[in-house]
């Protein structure tokens, strides 16, 4: 279900890093040897032979990240991102796998479109990439796609991300039929009669600035509906980019009742609130919107206690000229692949809000499990999916920082801590800095 370009596997020894793998219960200074892309030894003073040596003293080596929610804009808006540029950006962000959403032009709703993406990925993807296909044809919410054929053609899951499946009856059919394919259904929860024309979270800041509000109940109402349908059908589901505390509450309750529901949260919803929008910066406009401090606190709590299993960037590249307009005219979405770890490390780990181990787990094995992908592990016999992190590096994020074709990052101009020094994805050294 993941595709990448054919490249020789590496022989590498990472020497002297603090190796942290929360899943394996490892946190020790070790050497890690990789032979032909597979981890073959962990230990002290490992033989380097003729291997490439990454001197990693003072750095952290962790399982590489998995991003379950990326927009690669291909086909249709290759000026904003391509499979090559998006996967290069992912490699720079420490990712060994990313999943691309199907809301392209045309929408990925046929095996033919999916097949051509897989073909391209096989020739140009710097790291493994998976493709979700649409739940409904053209994401129009009217008819189901041929999910069986799409799954057979390699779809990693199904989503109408960007738009909700509005009709409950059709949503039920999608859950029923999706189960046949064995792939995860991922839902963008938004009740559009409540969010319509909404530019930002409805609250004190929107009241003052005059923006049309997008209330949190527009999300949580749909979350409740989809959880109820999934419970009725006894089917798993994945909730995309949660933003509201009511949604976290509903999910926690449903999971306690035994529902196989997973969810993701973005770095920007974990780090920012609607207060930031006072700057009127279009790079703070996204859907769902930044919400209040109590929502942010609930998201952090949910990520910590495992109600939310994954961090997802919702990397949404937009052309410069489309964001250089007044806030209301700007499209929704911000980039995130290359800044996710630094954002979380700076805003959550350093201030002591979330332990480093939890962030590493939710960026790696959490999202992999949610989609039934192989979890990156640091263990003998596992494929080498590793990220080397410099927790002490402090740097300013500028447009030149990015490998993505777009620069609509909410962190432009900010100084952050925590830098990716190297990424090994599927046994290949995909990035070094």
């Amino acid at each position, binding site marked *: 279900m993941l595709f990448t370009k054919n490249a020789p596997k590496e022989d590498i020894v990472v020497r002297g890093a603090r190796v942290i793998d929360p899943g394996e219960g490892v946190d020790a200074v070790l050497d890690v040897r990789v032979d032909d892309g597979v981890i073959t030894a962990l230990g002290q003073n490992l033989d380097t032979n003729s291997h490439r040596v990454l001197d990693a003293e003072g750095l952290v080596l962790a399982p590489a990240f998995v991003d379950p929610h990326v927009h690669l804009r291909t086909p249709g808006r290759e000026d904003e991102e391509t499979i090559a540029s998006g996967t290069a950006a992912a490699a720079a962000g420490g990712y060994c796998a990313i999943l691309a959403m199907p809301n392209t032009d045309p929408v990925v709703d046929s095996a033919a479109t999916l097949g051509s993406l897989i073909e391209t990925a096989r020739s140009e993807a710097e790291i493994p990439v998976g493709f979700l296909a649409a739940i409904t044809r053209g994401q129009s919410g009217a008819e189901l796609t041929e999910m069986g054929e799409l799954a057979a053609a390699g779809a990693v899951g199904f989503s109408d991300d960007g738009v909700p499946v509005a009709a409950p009856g059709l949503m039920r059919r999608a859950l029923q039929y999706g189960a046949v394919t064995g792939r995860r259904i991922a839902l963008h929860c938004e009740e559009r009669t409540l969010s319509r024309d909404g530019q930002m979270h409805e609250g004190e800041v929107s009241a003052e600035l005059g923006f049309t509000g997008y209330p949190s109940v527009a999300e949580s109402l749909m979350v409740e509906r989809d959880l109820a349908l999934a419970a009725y059908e006894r089917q798993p589901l994945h909730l995309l980019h949660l933003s509201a505390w009511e949604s976290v509450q509903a999910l926690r309750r449903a999971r306690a009742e035994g529902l196989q529901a997973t969810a993701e949260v973005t770095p920007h919803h974990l780090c920012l609130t609607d207060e930031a929008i006072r700057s009127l910066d279009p790079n703070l406009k996204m859907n769902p919107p930044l919400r209040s401090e109590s929502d942010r606190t609930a998201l952090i709590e949910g990520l910590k206690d495992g109600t939310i299993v994954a961090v997802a960037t919702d990397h949404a590249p937009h052309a410069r000229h489309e964001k*250089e307009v007044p806030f209301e005219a700007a499209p929704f979405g911000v980039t995130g692949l290359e800044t996710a770890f630094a954002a979380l490390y700076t805003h959550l780990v350093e201030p002591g809000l979330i332990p480093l181990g939890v962030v590493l787990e939710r960026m790696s094995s959490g999202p992999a499990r949610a989609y039934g992908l192989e979890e990156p592990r640091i263990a003998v016999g596992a494929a080498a999916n590793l990220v080397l992190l410099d927790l002490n590096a402090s740097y300013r994020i500028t447009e030149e920082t990015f490998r993505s074709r777009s620069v609509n990052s909410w962190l*432009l101009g900010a100084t952050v801590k925590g830098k990716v020094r190297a990424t090994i994805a599927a046994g290949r050294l995909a990035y070094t800095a």
Partner: protein
Amino acid sequence: MAEIRVMREDLRPPTTPPRRHFISIKDVTRDDVERLLATARTLERSMEREVKKLPTLKGRLVINVFYESSTRTSSSFELAAKRLSADTMSIKSSGSSVDKGESLKDTAITLGAYDPDVIVIRHPQIGAPNLVARVTEAHVVNAGDGKHQHPTQALLDLYTMREELGRIEGLHVSIVGDVLHSRVARSLIQALSLMGAQVTLVGPPALLPRGVEAMGCEATTDISVIGGADVVYVLRMQRERMQEGANYVPSLREYAARWGVTPERLRPGQKVMHPGPMNRGVEIDPRVADHADALIETQVRAGLVTRMAVLYDLLTTGPIEVKTESVLEVA
């Protein structure tokens, strides 16, 4: 004639001031407002002369860019600039390159190439003046950006209240109607609370934005409270900004019956204001609009002198700083 030849000290042409803007009431202090009101007062007295033109801003260029229809604001800015002897140009979105799909950024850069001293902009989208401020070297005056701010309207309203009631501090002002879509209301709430007046918002629930009390006012759906106000400020029902089928109120008829400002709901002597244009018979009863206690024409006159004061102030004195860069500093 003679008195104009000898220029008064406080009306002398400016030396080069630091670059400032007037985009939001949030960006000004009480001292700034006092200074602007005092300048407006001085300018109003000068308007009593037979020849009303002052040489103060001779050689300056003021460009008015209006992306939305306007009678009062555009005419008063144009006249204000002319009365101060500035050169003026007025650009409307229809008939300009905006019709050809030119972006606001490119239009602003084009106009900026003429080195204007001031760009006055009205735009249907929040934050448009900030964008113009970022890409040009001009002082930017916000003449209304979407539902966000209309700071010169708030200034002229303060001026009107002080002229008519002698004070602003301690006044009780009821703002009635469509607060949700009103940039006038947002600027006025902030301006009145800055100057120590008490504000109560009155309107149908869906037109009172959730969380608006945090701006420093009260909010109620009960129209009877307007009887206790010194000033009843009536907002226009902004039908053009309302989404199709949003059902903010069941009908204008029902709105008028429940929230219309009628003589029966007022006490004698209460002052009534409206930013115009009015929907007579909807938010305001025609008998109220035409009554002597209505200050609507006074507001229009105040608009001219307060806008002259703003242009004068930007090009001469006083700090009205606004941050136009939106750099997020990470802790």
